[in-house]
C-alpha cells in the first residue's frame, strides 16, 4: 500500500525508557504522567496464573522492541491521508498516524455553535480543563490491564476529545483513524467521548497499519460516557498488520435511561486483547456489547468483558462471535456482575465460536456473579463447526463448497453486525470481513 521509504530511526526512544519531556502539556498533566509511569514500572507483569490472563499468551507482551515515533515525513503524511477512506459521509473526522495528528475535519459551524467540542486531546486539556479532568481515565482498568492502562496514561500524547451537549443529535457518524507507520513503532490511541443528557452520537474508530508486515505496538484507551437519556454508538474497526501487538481498554458508563452500544470488529494483529467494562450506574440504563473476530494464521484474540450492574432496573446484552481458522486462538473471559441492591437486572451474555480448522483453539469463560435477587441473568457459550447439512444444501444448489463455506461463516458473523442497526456502517464492516476471507 505504501512505498517503502528509506526511513531512518532518528532519535526515536524505546517506550520502556522514561516518557520524554518534549511535548507541551500543562503541569498537572505532566504530573499525572510521571505518576502513571511509576505505577507502570511498579506493577508486576501479568502471568498466565492471573485469572485475568488465563489462557493468554503473555509471552507475546514483550515491549522492549517498540519505540516512540519521530515526526513523520511529508510523504508519509500525504500517503496516510490518501488511504484514510472509511465512510462516505461523516460529521467530522480526525486522522492520526504514529499518534501525530495529520488532519482534522472539524464539525460544522452550526454544531460548534451549539456546543459540540471536537478537539485533539492536548488542546481539550487546556481549553476545557474542568470537563477533561473530570472524565479523563476516571475509571480504573479492572480487567487485568491496569499496568498497561498506566503505560497508556504515561505515554499518551494525542487523541480525540468529543463532547456532545444536552439534547443534541449528531446525525452522521464521527470518524477517527489511527495509523501505525514503520517498523516497531508504538501508538497510544485515546478517545474520550462525553455525552450530556439526551444527546445522540455515533463514532467509528479505524485502526490500521501502513506497512503490511511491520511489527508494532498499540495500547489504546477509549472511555465512553453516556449521560442521562443519551444514546451512544461506538464502532471499532481494528485491522492492524498481522505483526502488531494490540491492547485496547474500553470503559463505558451508562447513566439513567441512557443506552450505549459498542461493536468491535477485530481482524488484525498478532495478539490483540480487548477489555470492555460496561458500568450501568442509573435506572433504565442499557448497554449492548457486540464483537466479531476473524482469526487466521497464528493470530490470537483475547477478549475480557465485565457487565457491571450497579443500579437496579438496568439491562445489558453481550454477543461475541469468533470465526477461527488455521492455528488461530481466541479467548473470551466475560463476567456479568450484579452488585448488591441492583435488583431487577436483566443481563445476557453469549459467546459463539466457529472452528474452521483442526488446529484452531477457542477458550470460553463466561462468568456470573450475582449479589442481588429478582434478576434475570443467562449466559451461554458454544463451540462448533459449520453445519454439514447447510453446506450440502448450498452445494446441491450449485454453490461450490468453498464459497458455500464463506457464505455460512459471514452469515454467522453478520448476525452481530445487524444488531447495530446501521446499514451504512454494517455494509462497511461486512466488506472488511469479506476482504479478510478473500486475502
Amino acid at each position, binding site marked *: 500500500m505504501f512505498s517503502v521509504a528509506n526511513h531512518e530511526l532518528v532519535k526515536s526512544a524505546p517506550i520502556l525508557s522514561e516518557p520524554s519531556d518534549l511535548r507541551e502539556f500543562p503541569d498537572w498533566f505532566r504530573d499525572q504522567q510521571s505518576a502513571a509511569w511509576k505505577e507502570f514500572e511498579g506493577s508486576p507483569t501479568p502471568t498466565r496464573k492471573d485469572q485475568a490472563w488465563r489462557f493468554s499468551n503473555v509471552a507475546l507482551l514483550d515491549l522492549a522492541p517498540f519505540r516512540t515515533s519521530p515526526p513523520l515525513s511529508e510523504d508519509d503524511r500525504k500517503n496516510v491521508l490518501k488511504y484514510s477512506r472509511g465512510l462516505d459521509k461523516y460529521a467530522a473526522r480526525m486522522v492520526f498516524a504514529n499518534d501525530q495528528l495529520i488532519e482534522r475535519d472539524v464539525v460544522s459551524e452550526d454544531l460548534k455553535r451549539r456546543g459540540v467540542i471536537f478537539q485533539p486531546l492536548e488542546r481539550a486539556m487546556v481549553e476545557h480543563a474542568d470537563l477533561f479532568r473530570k472524565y479523563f481515565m476516571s475509571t480504573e482498568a479492572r480487567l487485568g490491564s491496569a499496568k498497561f492502562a498506566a503505560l497508556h496514561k504515561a505515554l499518551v500524547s494525542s487523541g480525540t476529545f468529543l463532547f456532545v451537549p444536552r439534547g443534541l443529535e449528531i446525525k452522521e457518524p464521527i470518524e477517527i483513524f489511527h495509523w501505525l507507520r514503520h517498523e516497531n513503532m508504538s501508538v497510544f490511541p485515546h478517545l474520550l467521548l462525553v455525552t450530556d443528557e439526551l444527546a445522540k452520537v455515533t463514532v467509528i474508530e479505524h485502526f490500521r497499519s501502513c506497512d503490511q508486515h511491520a511489527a508494532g505496538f498499540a495500547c489504546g484507551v477509549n472511555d465512553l460516557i453516556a449521560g442521562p437519556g443519551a444514546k451512544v454508538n461506538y464502532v471499532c474497526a481494528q485491522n492492524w498488520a498481522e505483526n502488531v501487538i494490540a491492547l485496547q481498554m474500553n470503559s463505558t458508563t451508562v447513566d439513567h435511561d441512557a443506552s450505549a452500544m459498542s461493536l468491535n470488529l477485530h481482524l488484525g494483529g498478532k495478539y490483540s486483547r480487548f477489555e470492555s467494562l460496561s458500568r450501568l450506574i442509573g435506572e433504565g440504563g442499557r448497554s449492548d456489547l457486540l464483537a466479531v473476530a476473524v482469526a487466521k494464521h497464528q493470530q490470537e484474540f483475547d477478549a475480557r468483558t465485565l457487565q457491571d450492574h450497579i443500579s437496579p432496573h438496568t439491562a445489558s446484552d453481550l454477543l461475541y462471535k469468533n470465526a477461527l481458522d488455521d492455528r488461530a486462538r481466541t479467548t473470551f473471559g466475560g463476567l456479568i456482575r450484579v452488585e448488591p441492591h441492583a435488583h431487577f437486572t436483566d443481563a445476557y451474555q453469549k459467546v459463539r465460536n466457529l472452528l474452521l480448522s483442526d*488446529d484452531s483453539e477457542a477458550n470460553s469463560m463466561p462468568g456470573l*456473579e450475582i449479589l442481588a435477587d429478582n434478576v434475570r441473568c443467562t*449466559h451461554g457459550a458454544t463451540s462448533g463447526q459449520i453445519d454439514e447439512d447447510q453446506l450440502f444444501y448450498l452445494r446441491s444448489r450449485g454453490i461450490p463448497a468453498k464459497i458455500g463455506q464463506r457464505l455460512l461463516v459471514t452469515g454467522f458473523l453478520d448476525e452481530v453486525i445487524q444488531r447495530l442497526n446501521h446499514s451504512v456502517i454494517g455494509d462497511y464492516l461486512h466488506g472488511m470481513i469479506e476482504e479478510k476471507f478473500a486475502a
Partner: protein
Amino acid sequence: MKTETSAVNINRSIGDFSYPEAHVRDAGTGLSERTVRYISDVKEDPDWVREFRLRGLKTFLEKPLPTHWASKDLEAIDFDKIRYYLSPGTEAKRSWDEVPDDIKRTFERLGIPEQERKFLAGVEAQFDSEAVYSNIKKAVGEQGVIFVGSTEGLKHYPEIFRKWFGKVIPIADNKFSALNSAVFSGGSFIYVPPGVKVKHPLQAYFRINAENFGQFERTLIIADEGSEVTYMEGCTAPKFNTPTLHSAVVELVALKGAKIQYITVQNWASNVFNLVTKRGIAHENAEVKWIDCNIGSRLTMKYPGVIMKGRKARGEVLSIALANDGQHQDTGAKMIHAADETTSNIISKSISIGKGRATYRGLVHVPKHLKHCKNNTECDALLINATSRTDTYPAITVRGTGNAVQHEASVSQVSSDQIFYMQQRGLTEAQAMSLSVNGFVNDLVRQFPMEYSVELKRLIELEMEGSVG
C-alpha cells in the same frame, strides 16, 4: 414407616452430638514429618506407601494456597492446630454386633445402617480416621468384589490397588491432594471383577467426632471390564467451636465397558472446610457418573472430574448445592476429553439462601484432532433472598473441528406468581417456597436412587425453614 423416617432423618441437628473421645492412637496436633511417620508406623505401611506419604508432605508444604482464584476463606485454616490422625485402636468390624455400643449409637442416631442393612450390599462407616464397621453382603463377596478400607487394601491387595493408587489424582495435583497423600487414613478400596454387576449400592458414612480433627480418607474404586457398581457416601459432623478440615481424595477407574456411579450427600456441620479432590478415568465405552449433593460445610471446594480416555467413554456430573448463611458451596465439574466420540454432561443446580454463596466452577477441555466429542453443560442458580449470592465461572477449551460444546447458565428467583398461586390454594408462603425450590431441583433429584432423593428433599425442606418472611 419406621424405616423411611430413619432414612430421611440425616440432618445436621441430629448429627450435632458427640461422644467422649477414647482414642487409643493419636498423632497429636500439627503436621510434621514426625506426624506422617507416626501414621505410617501405626498402620504398618509398606515402604512405598511411607515414601508416598513423605512426598505428599513435601509437596503440600511447597504449594501455596490457591487463593489467586479461590476463596480467601482458605486462609482461616490453621494447619498447625489440626489433629491429623485418631483411631479407637480397633480393627474394622465385620458385623454390626461387634461395633462398640457408643459408636453404634452414633450411627443409629444418624438413622443409617441397621434398617438399611437388608437393602444395602455393604456398609462401611468411618469414625474419625478409621473404618469401624464394614459389612458386605455375602453374595457380593462371593462375586469376588473386594470392599475394604484403604489400609487393608494396600496391605493385602497391592497387586490390584498399587497400579492405580495415586495415578488418577497425582500427589501434586493440588495442595489438598498432597495433604491427603501425606496423612490419609480410612476410606474405601473397591475392586469389582470383570462382568460383575453389583446390584445394590455399596455405602459408606463418614463422621468427624473429635474437635480440631481433620479427616483425610482415601477412596479408590476399580471397576474391571464390563462391570457395574454404585457407591454412596454420606458425611456428618457435630458442630465444634473451631473449624474442622475434611480433605479427601477419591479415584475411580472404569475399565473397558465398566460403569461407576458415585453418589455423595455431604452434610458436614457449618464450620467444616470440605476440600475434596475427586476424579475418574473412563476407558473405552466406560461410564463414570458423579452425583454430588452439597448441603453442609462452611466452605466446600469440590469439582468432580472425568477423564475420558477411551473411545466412546462417557462422563457425567449431576450436582446440587445448597448454600445457607455463612456457607460457600464452591462446586463444579471437570471434563477432560481425551479420545474420539467421548461425551460428557454436566448439570448443576444451586440454591442460595440468606447470605449463602453458591459458586459453579467448571472446566471442559477438548484437545486437538479429536472427532465427535460432545459436551453439554447446564447451570441453574436460584436466589432466595436479597442477600444471597451466586457465581458461575466456567472455562471451556475446544480445539479443532468435529466437536460440539455448549454451555448454558441461568440465574433466577422463585416466581412470585407461582408463590401467589400456591398461597391462594391455601399453602403458607414458606410451604409454597419450599415446594417451589423442590420443583427447581426435582428433575435432577429424580435421577438419584430412591432413598437418597427422599433424604435430599427432606434436607432441602429443613434448610428452607425460616428463610422466608
